[in-house]
């Protein structure tokens, strides 16, 4: 009964969300001051996916990995390389005689391939790297991401990656419509949530809490860590593909370690171990950094009074202060390890208590 009710309400909310997004999209003209809202929604949904994928690793399996930007880059490049239309290749790969790949896949296949490529790299790098723990793992994965960034800009790989030149002219459905990244991210996050709630997810959490006890229960540590790492990277690759669409061009140097830290920040602010926390904080983070705090960078004059301090770059100061406040006063992040759930709210309103934590209303 209750399960069915939750399912119906959940589906209804998703439909309402998509309709609202569509209405916004149709009615906001690119020139209006609200156009930024669409950008925030697009980029926010893309970051939500990569943040949740990082949370799967850092929050649920206890593997402190900083390679997320690297796997996004692999995804973004894979998508771009395989979907640029054949007649555009001569122009994009102008320094490399049109590149070595002379076919183009449809966008959907490109996205899946992006995930697979990232997962494959993760599987291979995971064999040596996952033997490491905590900070050492973080350093190794960060190093891996930097190496990949350098490798993709290497001139000898130019016919494939276009060297240090950007890739462009590929199909960009996630840039054209806000619905597209929402649906793709939503499906991916739903899959991650299902994984977390499965037996595998329980084993991940057991490893996070106590490796020795988990091993004594018969959980194969290496096997489960590899699964978490590979799956997390698969979805990071997909979000990389979405980001490539959103940006309409791809360049290796934009996937730097600062990007990984942004994602880490989103995870920490949202709450390590909370999927909905990561989703909420992605939108908040992107909204603050791209839109809401922009006014701090401009000079404002009220009457004869020029507001002091406001100048280019001040936004970042305020932003840093907000982050410090969060770290000091909300040490667990916005959500801690709790989950935001529709059924929980309904139960609260109707006055029923419900002990089971359920996931609802994501994407």
């Amino acid at each position: 009964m209750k399960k069915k009710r939750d399912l119906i309400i959940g589906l209804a909310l998703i439909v309402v969300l998509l309709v609202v997004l569509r209405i916004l999209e149709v009615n906001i003209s690119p020139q209006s001051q609200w156009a930024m809202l669409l950008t925030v929604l697009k980029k926010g949904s893309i970051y939500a996916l990569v943040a949740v994928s990082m949370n799967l690793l850092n929050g649920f399996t206890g593997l402190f990995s900083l390679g997320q930007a690297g796997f996004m880059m692999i995804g973004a490049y894979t998508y771009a390389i395989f979907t640029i239309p054949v007649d555009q290749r001569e122009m994009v790969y102008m320094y490399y005689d049109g590149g070595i790949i002379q076919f183009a896949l449809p966008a959907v296949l490109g996205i899946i391939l992006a995930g697979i490529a990232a997962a494959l790299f993760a599987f291979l790098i995971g064999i040596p790297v996952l033997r490491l723990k905590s900070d050492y793992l973080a350093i190794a994965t960060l190093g891996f991401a930097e190496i990949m960034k350098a490798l993709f800009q290497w001139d000898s790989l130019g016919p494939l990656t276009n060297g240090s030149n950007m890739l462009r002219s590929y199909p960009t459905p996630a840039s054209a419509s806000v619905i597209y990244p929402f649906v793709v991210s939503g499906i991916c996050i739903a899959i991650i949530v299902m994984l977390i709630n499965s037996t595998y997810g329980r084993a991940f959490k057991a490893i996070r809490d106590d490796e020795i006890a988990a091993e004594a229960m018969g959980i194969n540590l290496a096997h489960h860590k590899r699964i978490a790492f590979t799956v997390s990277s698969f979805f990071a690759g997909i979000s990389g593909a979405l980001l490539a669409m959103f940006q309409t061009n791809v360049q290796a140097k934009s996937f730097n370690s600062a990007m990984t830290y942004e994602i880490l920040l989103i995870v920490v602010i949202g709450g390590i171990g909370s999927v909905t926390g990561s989703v909420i904080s992605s939108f908040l983070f992107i909204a603050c950094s791209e839109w809401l705090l922009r006014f701090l960078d401009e000079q404002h004059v009220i009457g004869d009074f020029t507001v002091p301090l406001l100048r280019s770059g001040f936004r970042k100061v305020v932003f840093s202060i907000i982050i410090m406040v969060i770290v000091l006063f909300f040490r667990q992040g916005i959500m801690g390890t709790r989950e935001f759930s529709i059924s929980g709210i309904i139960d609260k309103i109707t006055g029923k208590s419900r002990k089971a934590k359920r996931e609802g209303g994501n994407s």
Partner: protein
Amino acid sequence: MSDQNILEVRDLNVAYGGIKAVKGISFDVPKGEVVTLIGANGAGKSSTLRSICGLVRPSSGSIRLNGEEIAGKTPEVIVSKHITMVPEGRRVFADLTVLENLKIGAYLRKDALDDDLAWVYDLFPRLKERSWQLAGTLSGGEQQMLAIGRALMSRPDLIMMDEPSLGLAPIVVQGVFDIIREINRQGKTILLVEQNANMALHAAHHGYVMEVGTITMSGTGRELADDESVKAAYLGKSRKA
């Protein structure tokens, strides 16, 4: 090599780097009994248990479970052979609920858990009351109960317990040993490692005394509890001249 022994350990050596923790010990665990290894810190008791369940690779020696050699196998292989360990210091999964902890205990099983859950909740009614509580918020005694319950969920024939009385109040320790007797009465074989020699020897059918990596004495629980040198070393009585 009789059919009566569920576990037979022969000439087991365990070393960490160059340091030998266990130096060629041999002992048997007969089916359906409570066997205890007692000894001071650093005697090699925990290392023995850890090597039996595969967390540490023994450097040499034989460990036979129902006649089958398991020395050097991985924990997941060993746990799948109906042998389980309650680790030292309880080590419950603090951020998981009591129910989730119990389910993890049955991780290698694919069949239905309802009967076993009912059995564990029957043994530990307190856990049932708290099944939705995070394990980290339980008291020490409750965590020990959860650790034992979690081990029982794998439906083991042999349960190894590493210092279940560690850090618990005397009244709670009494409860833990009551449970050990109860589980044994229900047909489970128990290998108990303890510093609390008094309680352990009174609960055990058979006991071994370990000192710096070797077994120095063995006998029935009663014999050892009455032995003067054991009394002097572990039961707090002064050695008679």
